[in-house]
């Protein structure tokens, strides 16, 4: 096993993973439900999400040199294990498909009006199939390669818009804190950071698995800072109502920024930024699909699934949802339930079974 994924790579990938789609595509949904409670919900959600990923980490650490797909049946039994693997496959397929659909919708709505959706998806799927074929090590390295620039730009963009900020609204982050809004936002953020736990499917690739949870904590901290920078600046610029009604508030924020007279707007440049970050996220989820599929089918070399799975996801993303409200509906209800099961229930079940079996082994007299 080529164990070359460093904690720095994990940190880079999960940072991009955690903030990119929220800022790019889901900020309006988050602000719609949480309004001025969003910053507090983001902080609380990041802490809880990170903590909720702990059982997954513990399960991975129980056998860091083996894939969960290979030893999971010893913990929970064969049928539940394979059911869970199929569930992980489906969940990752859904996440990939949704992200891809959101990306193509964003491009079609903002920059490539009239371009057929399949053309956008096709070219992106070529990139995805290639990186998944190259392997998980390449995906992490790509994340590491782009992380510094992307994180820096994501962090800086809100500060460019400081002239537009209505600083009088700042007090509202405390005075307008409401439990219902807070809970809504927190759940969304928990579910985003809870996806850190998916790493337990990949423990044998890690160079220093024992330090993974520490990396999770650092990741949660830095991703939260970047998220907060955007959430606060969008709220202070547009207010919660307008922000919730804008399709892509982060991009509209960029449109407010005037770098100078030599360039009108640099929001098309944002495509490159969004795209590279989303690419990392989707490729990670797509690799998990391919990995789960190889565990389920018993195929040792998961590379062979890269192209067919990519093609399936590409085609599926075009037909999965017909309208934008349908997508919003799905993200608000069903998607939350699907993620809760995948991120918390299943890893917790594995963990509990691991604890029971460890306890039983200890209780069993030696010899």
């Amino acid at each position, binding site marked *: 096993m080529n164990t070359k994924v460093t904690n720095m790579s994990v940190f880079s990938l999960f940072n991009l993973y955690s903030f990119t789609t929220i800022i790019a595509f889901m900020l309006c949904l988050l602000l719609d439900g949480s309004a001025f409670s969003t910053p507090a919900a983001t902080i609380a959600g990041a802490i809880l999400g990170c903590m909720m990923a702990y059982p997954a980490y513990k399960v991975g650490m129980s056998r860091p040199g083996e894939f969960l797909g290979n030893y999971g049946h010893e913990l929970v039994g064969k049928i539940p294990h394979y059911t869970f693997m199929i569930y992980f496959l489906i969940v990752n397929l859904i996440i990939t498909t949704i992200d891809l659909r959101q990306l193509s919708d964003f491009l079609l709505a903002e920059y*490539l009006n009239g371009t057929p959706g399949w053309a956008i998806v096709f070219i992106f799927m070529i*990139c995805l199939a290639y990186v998944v074929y190259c392997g998980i090590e390449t995906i992490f390295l790509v994340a*590491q*390669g782009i992380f510094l620039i992307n994180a820096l730009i994501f962090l800086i963009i809100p500060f460019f818009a400081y002239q537009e900020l209505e600083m009088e609204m700042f007090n509202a982050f405390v005075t307008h804190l409401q439990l219902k809004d807070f809970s809504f936002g927190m759940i969304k953020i928990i579910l985003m950071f809870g996806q850190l736990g998916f790493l337990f499917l990949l423990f044998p690739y890690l160079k220093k698995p024992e330090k993974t949870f520490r990396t999770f904590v650092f990741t949660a901290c830095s991703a939260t800072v970047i998220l907060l920078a955007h959430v606060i600046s969008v709220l202070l610029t547009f207010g919660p109502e307008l922000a919730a009604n804008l399709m892509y508030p982060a991009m509209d924020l960029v449109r407010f920024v005037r770098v100078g007279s030599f360039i*009108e707007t*640099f929001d*098309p440049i944002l495509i*490159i930024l969004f*795209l*590279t970050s989303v690419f990392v996220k989707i490729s990670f989820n797509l690799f998990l699909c391919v990995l789960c599929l190889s565990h389920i089918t018993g195929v040792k070399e998961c590379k062979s699934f890269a192209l067919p799975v990519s093609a399936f996801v590409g085609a599926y993303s075009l037909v999965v949802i017909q309208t934008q409200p349908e997508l919003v509906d799905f993200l608000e209800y069903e998607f939350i339930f699907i993620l809760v099961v995948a991120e918390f229930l299943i890893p917790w079940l594995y963990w509990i079974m691991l604890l029971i079996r460890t306890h039983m082994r200890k209780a069993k007299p030696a010899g």
Partner: protein
Amino acid sequence: MPFRRKTPLPKQRKAANSSSSPQSQDYGTDLESRLHWLENEFENCADIIIRRFTISTGNDCAIIYIRNMINQLTVQNSIIRSLQREAAELKEYNIYEFLFDARGLTASQNDVISDLKLGMDAVLQSGVLLLIDGDERMLTFNISDYPTRSIEEAPNESVIRGPRESFIEDLEKNLTFLRRRIKSNQLKIEFKTLGRLTNTSIAIAYIEGICKPELVKEIKRRMAHIDTDSIDGATSIEEIIEDNPYSPFPQLQYTERPDVASGSILEGRVAILVDGTPMALLAPVTLPMLLQSAEDYYQRYVAANWIRWIRFIFVVVSLLLPSLYIAVTTFHPEMIPSKLLITIAAARENVPFPALMEAFMMEIAFEALREASVRIPKSIGQAVSIIGALIIGTAAVEAGIVSAAMVIIVSLTGIASFIIPHFDLGLSFRLLRFPIMLLASVLGMYGIACGLILVFVHLVHLKSFGVPYMSPIAPLVIKDLNDTLVRAPRWKMDKRPLQLTRNTTRQANHARAWTKQKGELE
């Protein structure tokens, strides 16, 4: 300038070291039968000279060599006359002892062999073979003397402050360049001969204790699979031993500068020198290494950093400028300030082609001009360049075939591609520019982003002899960044690159400790 070979030829060295190897021919001690075999082998080789002579002890002798490959005067004086002079004082039974045991002949370095096949190889490697009747042993002499090119300034890697000399086609001389710079017994040079017909000598140079042993082993392992009749030059080896032969990016660095080669092997890399090739191959290589120039290390670090950053910017320009122009004018005109947009639109009004066609026409014309300039005789090259660049460019704009903005874009891209220090890398970027232009014309910025993602994934996945091509950026090795994004001052570069060596300490970190002491002038 003539050059005399002082060190043993690889084949001869091998022969000397392989006394236990089975002999290909066994013709005993009879001179005539051995000469007959050699004459048969060298049949119709008009340049092979076989000279028979008899010495005063009564022994018949023969020397064999290739005409014009050795100094005939040396053969006459140092071998034939010397042998006759010494033989006059010796009795017959002593001549063999004198020649083969005591190595009495002082003509250059000589080796004793017994295998006629090895003797033939030695002659082909521009040596002299001496046979004597009555003993199966033979002597080979290294007194090759053939014309070689004089040392000139590196034509493709010229610098302002650094040394001027460059490698030439002669392997032995090239090795001398390295040895003169690294006067240490840790500099190891291993020879290998490849090519069944060309018998090309190849030297693998590295520093023991700095270079990873497994790297040398890996290079030798890959070379061991080369089984061809000819090695035309370093490129023949490069294409066979590189990791990904389908990649557009070079996975071995070449240099025509001995200082670059010695600097590289001092960092833990391996230099491969091929006889007949005036440059060294360096392995492994990374993309940041290919963006470094020798000049970076001869200028003061402030200027070197500035130049290096300019280079980085223009690498991006060389790859992306035409694509960005196409994307912005076709898909994202809102990015351009309105006044400039009006100017560009006015300039393009008379142009019947879309931006992509314009860019393609101009870029291909520029590539053709550049290719032609390599082959055009130097006396008219400059005139043709001026005609191509100025007259055709201006005429194309006036005729309304291309817009003035496009001429500026293509010219700037052309200049940018010359800034890339490594020619092969420049070629890769020139090639990749075209598919990205196509993507930009179809999908705008999104197309460019997808193109860049594909290139980046490929670069990240690529390895050169086990070293990631994008290191120290991906994977991130913070300590190695001091000679990647910036060129740190010499006194700060106290570590060798971690990716290349385990012996990372280059110098003590107190190079400027004298600033804390009080000098006599203060």
